[in-house]
């Protein structure tokens, strides 16, 4: 957060660099069943993010000492492709991706009916092919679609969005520039039925009022995003082959 910059992120009409208004989402599309081998899969494009998710399981947890006799363990692995960011990223987990894997695993565990599968593991592999701010939330949002596509019982989907503060204004769904030069970043994910929060991180500087505004914006946005999730699962976009999604 918060390196100073000369770039003007919001213009006199209240519009952002990419022309969006404060509470406007970037374009988003979700497809399911994009991979043949996985038990379930999803592909999300959200702004410039391009993220693939594959689900394997429930299957016996390995190594054995990771088994929980009462329930399944959800193991998410968030990974950035070496070519996903401007400077080549060395392959393998770094501290940031390990933390993100942990909070995503916990958020998904809230939604999955883990008690139905003692001693099992459910693996969620998230591969960021192109990163453009908000990858953890995009990956998490696609993960719950992939879990549903794999037929894994869930009490609800997980839907997320970020908000933040840019030039003193609370705005929804930060772009890359807003993420780099903004004043606060608030990624949040909820279970849409209850509105309960299963992922929440924040860094920057928010007054309590600004937090209220930001979290309301997110809650409102998750309704739209949840609809896109449901549409994807309903097969609306199933016909669009993965290979067409580049250009």
């Amino acid at each position: 957060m918060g390196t100073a910059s000369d770039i003007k992120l919001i213009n006199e009409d209240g519009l952002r660099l990419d022309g969006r208004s404060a509470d406007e989402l970037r374009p988003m599309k979700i497809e399911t069943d994009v991979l043949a081998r996985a038990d379930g899969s999803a592909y999300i494009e959200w702004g410039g993010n391009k993220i693939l998710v594959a689900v394997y399981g429930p299957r016996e947890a390995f190594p054995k000492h990771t088994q929980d006799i009462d329930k399944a363990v959800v193991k998410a692995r968030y990974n950035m492709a070496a070519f996903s960011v401007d400077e080549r990223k060395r392959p393998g987990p770094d501290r940031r991706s390990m933390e993100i894997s942990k909070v995503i695993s916990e958020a998904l565990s809230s939604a999955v009916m883990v008690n139905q599968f003692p001693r099992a593991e459910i693996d969620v592999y998230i591969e960021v092919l192109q990163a453009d701010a908000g990858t953890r939330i995009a990956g998490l949002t696609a993960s719950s679609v992939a879990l549903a596509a794999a037929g894994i019982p869930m009490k609800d989907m997980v839907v997320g969005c970020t908000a933040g503060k840019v030039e003193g204004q609370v705005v929804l769904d930060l772009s890359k520039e807003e993420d780099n030069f903004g004043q606060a970043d608030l990624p949040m994910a909820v279970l849409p039925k209850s509105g309960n929060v299963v992922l929440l991180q924040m860094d920057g500087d928010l007054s309590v009022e600004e937090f209220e505004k930001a979290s309301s914006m997110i809650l409102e946005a998750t309704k739209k995003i949840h609809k896109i999730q449901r549409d994807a699962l309903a097969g609306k976009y199933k016909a669009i082959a993965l290979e067409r999604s580049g250009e």
Partner: protein
Amino acid sequence: MPRDEAGILSEIKRDFILRRLKEGKRGDGRKPDEYREISITPNYVPRSPGSAMVCLGKTKVVAGIKVEAGEPFPDTPNQGVLTTNVELLPMAFPTFEAGPPNDTSIEIARVVDRGIRESKMIDIESLVIEPAKKVWIVFVDIDVIDFDGNLIDACTLGVLAALKSTIVPGSKEGGKDFPLPIRNTPVAVTMVKIGDTLVADPDLEEEQLSSARITVSTTEDGHIRAMQKGDVGEFSMEEIRKAINMSSNLGKAIREKYFK
């Protein structure tokens, strides 16, 4: 979070704690929004430019600061560098293992780091020796030596006390030694949800009973500087509001008592 040696709390203990919580009392007699006793010893490792030992109940950590000249990051040529590392030493708990940081210690270190970094507690713009070439690198290392819950807050307290006592060795680079420039005091307060109750500063037993964890860091102005929800549970927005409020109040009290 690690389980106790038996792997789980006994049913009896669990019931006892839950029953008492319904009456607003915690296992050790504290109120839900009450912190354990804090003891801070600054300069615990006097040969380091900054250090502190913190006891938070029976949890104990030692924070040590090293300040060394080095290269800035290419994208921030006019800033010093801050790095934070937490070691969950095997001496602190029966199941802690030696080895590289795991996701638990990394999460703690990153939440502690964000609290410090995002509050702009340290004036890192003043830590430049030669722009784009040489800056002061502030290494924050925390040894967890005894574990009884709530490491994020204990480590944050250790880092606050250590940073506030830190002298930058400017004389090594042709200048003068000077105290690390500090602008504010971001206090992290962690709460867990047990049943329907939010309790602050959980001990290990309470962490084992909790369904979800939330940490909120605030500064003097009452602003939120960092948050982190943890564990496999949910919070309603109402609970989050309550957590922010509790953190703000406890943060103020801690700041006044220990960091005047």
